[in-house]
């Protein structure tokens, strides 16, 4: 737990430091947002009102104090509070993430299990092929191909935006397909391992049906590493979402961040980076707690 505290402290320091990477002074950048060189007095006045003339550590503490009150500053592009902008877009990203995890699971569960049941079979080779394609395929290219076939040619799905369940299909497939590869391999390896264990043979010997042994005894245990990987991958998922959301005009936080980068909206970028880091930390903490529930041998987090 102390470790988590240290990491969060480091996260806050880096996020705070990001603003100071930008060439020039934040006050000047804010005033220059509309492209006009600001007057010296105006910059000085804003510097003072923002507390930028204070020593760096005081600035950091002030900033941290605001962040802890959920005040992430005001977007330079829209003039709205960044926290509010992010909160209104978070559900869309969460929906996309959930749908992509479902797509990944729909691919990885059957393929991973089938590959492990018959190693070397046609299905095993298919699983290997899909997982190779999944890790090698650029998500943005897959997205373009899906756009072309799914939206332009067949007109089955809307090309952009978020209305109705059909609109989530293309972005979720794009993102989910890219995730599926590692899980196919992980589930296959886990199943191969579990299937050789004595308790599986014992369950079969007790006369339980093969299907129920595979699903209830083997798959359940083989899935544990996947839960860990999902925790580790959540950052990659958020990063991928930025690209996919932009491609499909999905109104989530990823598209918001890319738009903020175009608009040089440093305050919004900072808020987004902080939010994603907190999501990653929270999800990993959740996975740890889940493990403690599932495996009583683990006492301490």
């Amino acid at each position, binding site marked *: *737990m102390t*470790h988590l505290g*240290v*990491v969060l402290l*480091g*996260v806050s320091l*880096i996020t705070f430091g*990001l603003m100071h*990477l*930008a*060439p020039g002074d934040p006050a000047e950048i804010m005033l220059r947002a509309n492209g006009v060189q600001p007057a010296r007095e105006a910059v000085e006045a804003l510097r003072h009102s923002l507390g930028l003339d204070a020593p760096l550590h005081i600035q950091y503490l002030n900033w941290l104090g605001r962040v802890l009150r959920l005040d992430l500053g005001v977007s330079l592009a829209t003039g709205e509070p960044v926290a509010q902008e992010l909160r209104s877009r978070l559900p869309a990203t969460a929906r996309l993430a959930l749908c992509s995890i479902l797509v990944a699971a729909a691919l990885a569960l059957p393929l991973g299990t089938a590959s492990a049941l018959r190693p*070397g079979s046609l299905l095993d080779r298919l699983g290997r092929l899909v997982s*190779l394609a999944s890790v*090698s395929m*650029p*998500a*943005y*290219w897959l997205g*373009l191909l899906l*756009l*072309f076939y799914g939206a*332009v040619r067949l007109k089955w799905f809307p090309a952009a935006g978020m209305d109705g369940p059909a609109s989530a299909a293309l972005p979720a497939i794009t993102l989910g397909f890219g995730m599926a590869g*590692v899980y196919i*391999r*992980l589930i*296959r390896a*886990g199943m191969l*391992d*579990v299937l050789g*264990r004595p308790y599986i043979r014992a369950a079969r010997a007790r006369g339980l049906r093969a299907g129920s042994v595979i699903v209830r005894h083997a798959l359940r*245990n*083989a899935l544990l*590493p996947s839960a*860990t*990987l999902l925790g*580790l991958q*959540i*950052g*990659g998922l958020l*990063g*991928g979402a*930025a*690209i996919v959301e*932009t491609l499909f005009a999905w109104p989530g936080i990823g598209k918001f*961040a*890319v738009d903020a980068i*175009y608009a*040089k909206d*440093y305050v919004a*970028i*900072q808020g*987004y*980076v902080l939010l*994603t*880091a907190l999501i*990653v930390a929270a999800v990993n903490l959740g996975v*740890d707690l889940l*493990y403690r529930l599932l*495996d009583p041998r683990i006492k301490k*987090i």
Partner: protein
Amino acid sequence: MKNQVKTGKQVSAWIGAVLVLGVLAAGVFAPLLAPSDPLDVHMAHRLAGPSAEYPLGTDHLGRCVLSRLLYGTRLSLFDALAVLAAVFAVSVPVGLLAGYAGGRTDRIIMTVIDVLLAFPGLILALAVAAMLGPGALHLLLAFAAVWWAGYARLIRGMVLQLKENDYVLAARASGSSHLRIAFDHILRGAARPILVLASMETGTILLSLAGLSFLGLGAQPPVPEWGVMLSDSRPYIQTEPNLMLFPGLAIAVSVLGFNLLAEGLREPGGPSRSWRNSFGGAAPKRSRAAKPAASARIEAQRGHGE
């Protein structure tokens, strides 16, 4: 059975090597292979189909698609290799130091690594590049500054394991200096998994760099970069779908080559399996199933969590 697995691995290694060498050669010999100048605009021939003069047709500015693809290798692939070199220049010494020195040094380095890994890599690299301002060099710097942490952690894990080997003990007993042991004995032992890692991650970095260029945040038009070319093709998706086909294919084939090469290079049961496990990746046969990823996590949390 075992023999079968081995030949399968060799086949993927060969296919991977051929693909990688092919793409590398395309980049190196681009000036000889390209039928025309990749930046030459011919508005009269815009969006033309394949012909003898333009084997893959032309883009929206009448530029030769094949020539742009060939020259694109120099940007997309060589930039990824440059990032890889920068990343390894940082992560190998840092990982070596943390694993070999242990104790307080290790704890401090691991804390820094954990902080960096708490951020989604692509997002932090994106933000750093955005703050520094547009440009390929800034993007390279941002990637190197963010991406080293994961590798340093993996290399530290390998070092921790190799450190326990008898030959390291023997070297120490015979009075070799720490520097010599670290570089000569331990690093050499980790060479193969590091090579596998490098091959695999070249693909990942290439994907990410081209992705950022696709978003307009990396290489800027008119340079012939694969991500830029894909981005250029977007407005013509309805009328000229061929335009988006080739740059995407170039990226996918290159990444596939590096992935196959990595897969083939990995020896079954070799030291490379330990780092795959610690990352939660494809775990080869092990005696206890659910444990590897879990125990690695717990170890990571415990080792420096007090």
